[in-house]
């Protein structure tokens, strides 16, 4: 296989090194074009994200490792010694690495989705610039497929993995459409703003803001299109709300049962308290009611821990899927490396067939011409299929390319250069 990758990521490089290795989208085309002008490079793609800087190459001949590190340092404008911390994978290992990356198995946050989009973008950029080779096209398209497979066939990307998202996940377990629900925000600090942003992303749009400093409440209410209410919230606010998000720095409870409990009188629909404050803002007495759900920071952390554990469990299944895809890719490659020989065989036999039919055509009636064409094509197809099947079997099972070589020589046309090129490639494959 002729594949090489070299790169660094959050595990192997410091943040400052990753920052230096980051490539802006503007300079990416120039770099790719420069790379494919290298006499030993047939195709190249660069995956540059905040957590990784990776170079994927399909070389004519394998690079020496030192050469590859030097090239990497040059492309990413790093010091030569920086190239030494980069990891290098070749052939099937390079394939497996990219498949794992696309599946989110190599990400800082296991199963993250964004990396798949970044792999797609890296491939599309290289493809649009005509910097990819056949093997790189197959590698990236299959990596993207693998990433999708892993996410649809396992639950590796499911469940919140941050406290604020965990709060939203709980809200969504209770309420399907947050847009139809009333949300009371208590506090107007950074945590409340972040929670309101996530809730708004999930569709929430009916807001009330309650804060000690009215100016801050008004500012947040304006940002999210809500209205301000008294601080602390009163029983009417509680009666109005479906979700109460609270994150103040108060040393004691802000929303007390004794003051707001009247808001629950006659209430028939559920009420959710998301208490993001430490110490807690919500009176624990609320939790004793049947349709009232109170969650605190500890609960969100517990959910995050459960989700991470679940993702780790799913990662085992994801690795199995990756292995399967790597195997499929290797099979494809083993068969595909004899593709030029197959093509040459098909062209040679078709030329013979067409010429013979043309010569013999005068011995038959014109109306029989179609039948002769059919017959000759069918016969030739059977012969070709038999030879190709044996070539493929030998190449796949025993890594034996001698039949492919023999066929290439036996059906050699006049273009000696093309034949030499095919034979050279086969020889190179055999040497690996």
């Amino acid at each position, binding site marked *: 296989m002729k594949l090489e990758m070299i790169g660094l990521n959050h595990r192997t490089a410091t943040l400052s090194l990753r920052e230096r290795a980051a490539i802006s989208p503007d300079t990416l085309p120039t770099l790719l074009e420069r790379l494919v002008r290298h006499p030993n490079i047939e195709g190249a793609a660069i995956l540059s994200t905040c957590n990784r800087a990776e170079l994927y190459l399909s070389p004519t001949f394998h690079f020496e490792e030192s050469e590859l590190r030097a090239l990497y340092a040059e492309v990413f404008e790093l010091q030569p010694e920086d190239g030494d911390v980069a990891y290098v994978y070749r052939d099937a290992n390079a394939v497996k690495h990219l498949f794992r990356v696309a599946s989110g198995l190599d990400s800082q946050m296991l199963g993250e989705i964004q990396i798949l989009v970044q792999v797609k973008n890296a491939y599309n950029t290289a493809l649009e610039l005509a910097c990819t080779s056949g093997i790189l096209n197959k590698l990236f398209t299959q990596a993207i497929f693998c990433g999708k497979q892993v996410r649809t066939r396992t639950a590796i990307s*499911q469940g919140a993995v941050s406290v604020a998202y965990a709060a939203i996940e709980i809200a969504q377990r209770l309420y399907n459409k947050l847009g139809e629900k009333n949300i009371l925000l208590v506090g107007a600090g950074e945590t409340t703003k972040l929670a309101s942003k996530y809730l708004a992303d999930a569709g929430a749009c009916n807001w009330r803001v309650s804060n000690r400093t009215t100016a801050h409440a008004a500012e947040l209410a304006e940002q999210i299109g809500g209205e301000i209410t008294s601080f602390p919230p009163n029983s009417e606010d509680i009666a109005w709300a479906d979700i109460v998000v609270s994150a103040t720095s108060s040393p004691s409870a802000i929303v007390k049962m004794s003051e707001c409990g009247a808001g629950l009188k006659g209430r028939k629909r559920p009420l959710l308290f998301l208490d993001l404050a430490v110490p807690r803002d919500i009176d624990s007495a609320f939790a004793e009611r049947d349709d009232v759900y109170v969650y605190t920071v500890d609960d969100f952390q517990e959910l995050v821990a459960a989700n991470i554990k679940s993702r780790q469990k799913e990662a085992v299944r994801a690795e199995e899927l990756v292995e399967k895809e790597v195997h499929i890719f290797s099979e494809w490659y083993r068969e595909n490396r004899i593709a030029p020989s197959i093509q040459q065989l098909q062209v040679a036999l078709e030329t013979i067939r067409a010429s013979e039919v043309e010569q013999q055509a005068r011995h038959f009636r014109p109306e029989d011409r179609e039948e002769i064409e059919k017959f000759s094509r069918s016969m030739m197809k059977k012969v070709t299929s038999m030879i190709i099947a044996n070539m493929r079997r030998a190449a796949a099972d025993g890594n034996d390319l001698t039949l492919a070589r023999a066929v290439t020589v036996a059906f050699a046309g006049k273009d000696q250069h093309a034949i030499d090129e095919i034979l050279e490639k086969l020889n190179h494959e055999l040497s690996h």
Partner: protein
Amino acid sequence: MLTYTLFPAIMLLFFGGLLAMWVTLYHKPDELLERIADRVGWTTLALFAVWLSILTYDQRQIPILTAGQISVFLGFLIWMDQLLVQRKMSQRMLVILPLVTVILLLLAGIAGGLHHKSAPDELHSAWSAVHIVLSMAGVAMLFGSGVYGAGSMLLRRELMSRKFGRLFSSLPSMDEMHKLRAFAIYFGWLLITISFASAVAFMFLENSGTPSFFSHLHEMFGLWGAASLLALSERFRWLGDQKQARLTVAMSTVIFLLITGSVLQIFFGGQS
């Protein structure tokens, strides 16, 4: 003969396979397998429909001539309801309970007998077909409401215990289950009411105003009363969400028992 031997066996095989698939999905989420299970579910419904159509053609009456046939027919309606709801939303966990019920109904149907050799005469009439079909459809809907009520209770337990396990992530939201529960109750009540009214009309028209032969009147009246109570409680929000969910589970169980009593009364109650 195949209608009474091969088809029931095929249906059991399909439903057994579906149950295995959904139990696997509970432990190992897999969208591909879920899509396959969904398609197999529809194929099973289609096969079920074919079987019941052949049975209908064979006996010139829809499958209501024996207690076994009614049991199987109820299973078909429950599965149809389930698939229609599933088209609207993913509800992986709530498939298992209806599936188990359908399998039990199939087994009860086979055990109860599918042949119609000595079916009561009035069961051959169009009136009784309308009455029984509407009753069964109503009961299937109310059974569905019980499933969503049970789902709400399960989700609440998960939310309260802070376990955040597989159930927590695979059940539909509380809101969705509430809406489905309410819809199933209203629609089920409507069907039961029409069925009840049609039965009363049948009773008077066929017997010149003498309601003497109506054997399962008490059970049917009890069933309609239970469904009405449930519908009123849901409509006027007499109870909080969780209490209503508990009431729905209790009432749908009562309704299921009453319809069983009703069916037994028709076939084994002497006067029919």
